[in-house]
């Protein structure tokens, strides 16, 4: 087997799978062996971080479109204005809040 192993195959070998041909290739090919070691190191690092006490939240505000961030607030404000407008008799009488 001369072709190097795919990332998917390396992951399946890490999962305890993979054919004997693939395992032999992994032993003989220095490039694939180095990629496999790097995969193991990366998985270990990721798992270690996730096992520790996680931060309160990992999401960031920047991922959300600007308009959507203000949508709930704008909706509440619009509803409040509508209620005030209705309480004042749909604008036909003097504003109830003014002296």
């Amino acid at each position, binding site marked *: 087997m001369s072709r190097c192993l795919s*990332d998917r195959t390396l992951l399946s070998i890490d999962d305890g799978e993979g054919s004997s041909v693939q395992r032999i290739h992994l032993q003989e090919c220095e490039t694939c062996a180095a990629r496999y070691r790097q995969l193991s190191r990366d998985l270990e690092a*990721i798992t270690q971080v996730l096992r520790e006490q996680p931060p309160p939240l990992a999401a960031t*505000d920047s991922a959300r479109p600007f308009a959507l961030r203000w949508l709930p607030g704008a909706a509440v404000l619009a509803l409040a204005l509508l209620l005030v407008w209705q309480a004042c008799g749909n604008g036909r009488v003097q504003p109830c809040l003014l002296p």
Partner: protein
Amino acid sequence: MTLRPKPVSYEGLYAAHHGEVLRLCRLLLANHHDAEEIAQEVFLKVHQEFQHMNQPQMMSWRPWLVRVSVNACRDRRRSGWWKWWRAGAQEFDEANYANAIKTPEETLLSRETQGRIWRAFQELSARQREVFALRYVDEWSTEEVAQMLGITTGSVKQYLFRAVRHLRRVLGERK
């Protein structure tokens, strides 16, 4: 030979698995308070099961706990859209993150990397998070993950591959 579950009490079950359930919920929800609420709900269900089942102490509880926790987290994500909306506005708190590396430079790099990993993990789909958390963090086998989530082992491998590819890409950006 078939391994039979050891008899357990509710208190013993809570002591043995509460930390694990809480960690899983934190991973899936990325919110400490929600995770604690869900963990409480899960153990309330355990308590109810103990009252209603014939021989609850002989049941294999760990897979059951994982299934109930994953489903409860899924329900929370679906029902609590407003909470998620609000939660998204908060930034990653690097200051609260414990670090064992000594030098300030290493600490800074490591915190940055940890933050990247956490953000990348939250960018995964809900199913990818569930599969990765169960397979690598909780160390269940691929077959067990498939059984607990009600999907095929092929699907588990597919979700895992995509999750690992995304997380490694983010991890590789620092190098």
